[in-house]
């Protein structure tokens, strides 16, 4: 349960405030409109979003009616299930780790793309894989330096370009290097771009075309990195990046703050893109694979408290 405790610790601040209120709501005597209203408020405060929250609440109402549940306490165990209903998972989620793959990492500015790549590189290097990291962010001053520090630390091979150089040419070099060196995983860092900037989104399409053309045999993965403190705009971001580049997975960073990262639920509910990694701290090991059960449990349950999932924190 090491994974769980990390995530648990990461979300502990989240849970501290959350817990009391959640406990209070479910300790009430009856299920009435106030009960649902307060629960709704709590979910929205976690950035779960208006739509997903409505789905969850509606689901609970239905259950309560169908199963004739009278006490909030009894309904408590249904909450986690309803939340999980909103989430997407897929068997082939981590297929790229077992194949020769090219991983394009995209996202808006300042969400932690470069750091995420650094951590992924370290993780795969530790697994004994051959890793290339490519700095296709030729726009932000010193972005390449930042990535080179990470590459050095992990022993990954670094591909860079000059400041202001066409980022696609860096992708070209990286993909060719990956193919000729028979690299296991090629991680490409792209410049942060706001999702409503059309030209920059076109640039991503161009990168995809290059990968497709130069290394057709590679398994292609596109990860969008989202800041855990982002609100409902994250859904927009994911949607528009998905339109441009076929996003196959989400990484949510900075869940070690007090942000609840409820957007993980909002996005999956609306777009069905699976969350694959979550960042719960600054250390290299603090980027973890995402597991819906663990996440929901870490978000909603108190340490040591009994719950229906039958799991308790060690």
């Amino acid at each position, binding site marked *: 349960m090491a994974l769980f405790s990390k995530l648990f610790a990461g979300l502990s601040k989240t849970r501290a405030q959350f817990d009391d209120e959640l406990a209070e709501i479910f300790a009430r005597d009856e299920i009435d409109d106030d009960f649902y209203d307060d629960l709704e408020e709590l979910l929205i405060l976690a950035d779960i979003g208006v739509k997903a929250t409505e789905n969850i609440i509606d689901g609970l109402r239905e259950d309560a009616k169908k199963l004739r549940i009278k006490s909030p306490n009894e309904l408590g165990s249904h909450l986690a299930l309803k939340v999980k209903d909103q989430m997407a998972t897929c068997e082939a989620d981590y297929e790229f780790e077992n194949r020769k793959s090219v991983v394009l990492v995209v996202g808006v500015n300042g*969400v*932690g793309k470069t750091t995420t790549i650094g951590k992924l590189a370290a993780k795969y290097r530790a697994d004994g894989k051959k890793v290339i990291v490519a700095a296709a962010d030729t726009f932000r001053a010193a972005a390449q330096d930042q990535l080179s520090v990470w590459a050095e630390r992990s022993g990954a091979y670094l591909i860079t370009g000059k400041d202001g150089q066409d980022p696609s040419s860096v992708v070209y070099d990286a993909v060719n290097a990956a193919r000729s060196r028979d690299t296991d995983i090629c991680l490409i860092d792209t410049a942060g771009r706001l999702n409503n900037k059309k030209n920059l989104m076109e640039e991503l399409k161009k990168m995809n075309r290059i990968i497709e053309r130069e290394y057709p045999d590679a398994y292609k993965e596109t990860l969008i990195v989202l800041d855990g403190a982002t609100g409902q*705009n994250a859904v927009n971001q994911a949607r528009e990046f998905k339109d441009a580049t076929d996003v196959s997975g989400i990484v949510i960073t900075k869940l070690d703050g007090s942000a609840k990262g409820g957007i993980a639920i909002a996005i999956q509910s609306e777009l069905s893109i699976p969350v694959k990694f979550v960042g719960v701290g600054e250390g290299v090991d603090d980027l973890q694979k995402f597991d819906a059960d663990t996440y929901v449990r870490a978000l909603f349950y108190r340490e040591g408290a009994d719950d229906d999932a039958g799991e308790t924190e060690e």
Partner: protein
Amino acid sequence: MAFESLTDKLQNVFKNLRSKGRLTEADVKASLKEVKMALLEADVNFKVVKQFVKSVEERAVGADVLNGLNPGQMVIKIVNEEMTSLMGSEVTELEFQPGQAKTVIMMCGLQGSGKTTSAAKIAGKLFRKGKKSLLVACDVYRPAAYEQLKINAEKVGADFFGIEGENDVVKIVKAAMDEAVSKNDNVIIIDTAGRLQIDDVLMEELVHIKEAVTVHQTLLVVDAMTGQEAVNVADTFNEKIGIDGVVLSKMDGDARGGAALSVKSVTGKPILFVGMGEKLTDMDQFYPDRMASRILGMGDVLSLIEKAGEQIDEKKEKEMSAKLKKGKFDFEDYLESMNQMKKMGGLASVMSMLPGMGGMLPKGANMADLTDQIDDKKMARTEAIVLSMTKQERQNPDILNPSRKHRIAKGAGVDIAEVNRLIKQFTQAQKMMKQMPQLMGKRGRFKLPF
């Protein structure tokens, strides 16, 4: 702007209600539910929303509906006014120390909120006003933060100071003060490391900087995309280190920026600047009323009007509209109107500022599709075609024969089919312009003339 604007939603709510002279409780309740949802979608903090909705309700029930407005619009008007006043009704400027005294500004905020970029942008803004800044690198944790600030300092015409490899920020800022004296800088801007508000050790570091030197302005940088969390962030930063103002970054995205309202209402501190783009000159003054409209999804009409006012030559405008009315609209005018559009930041940017764009789109289409059609790049091609015409051809499109068209296509580097298409569209546009007065009355949708 994938959202339906609040204005549109409220129009729907009131479609079935007949306009009354006074807002009834039912009117207000019905519309406030939509207002509440719109605010939540815009990431305004739930608690702030609740309080806000309550105060609007108190003011709105029984209010007279103004002439020319329907109840929905009246509620919006009240909501907008209340929100503007909540956001701080006036534009706040950065305060400087009098005379030759040096002003010290410290930037703080979460990781990735845009501190380093904002610091450089502020320095650039001050440089253009004739003040010289010293940018001080105190982010000793993030790899390459030092280089980023150094490069940006050079780009914006500011001095730079940092001690590579030094981890003691107090030492750095103290040395920076001497540096500022020797380089004769007016303003010292300290860039600090991004930190979580719950990280006590790092928060302490900021307090230490403040103890070591006199900081006149502590600016909290908040990402406009921040969700419900914005309240906690602002509150903790304010409590632990004290902030004087807020910089709202990444406003050029499509986030509504509800964080602004949350931060303002929790800390009471003014928002000084908004970061509007990736270029180091993209830093704007903050206008409370415009932000209010944006959060409500009403489009930034005011900004648009003002921008238009700045850029469009009034006389030319009059000539143009006279021509339009007569349907005498040639390629010269076409070129002129394209140039004006460009001055206003391109068609896509103009469109995004208009309210109710969501309602005008056909079902299933979104803003991205629309801007696709009216891509600024396409405009450039169109412009090339028009520029390849002779003056005579522009003024008198009827003389365009195949041989002329062929020459134009060659000159513009496009296919002749594209020239033909433009001319056809132009003729249609001409016809449409003639009918404009009637069309305008009917609220019809029409294709843009390119």
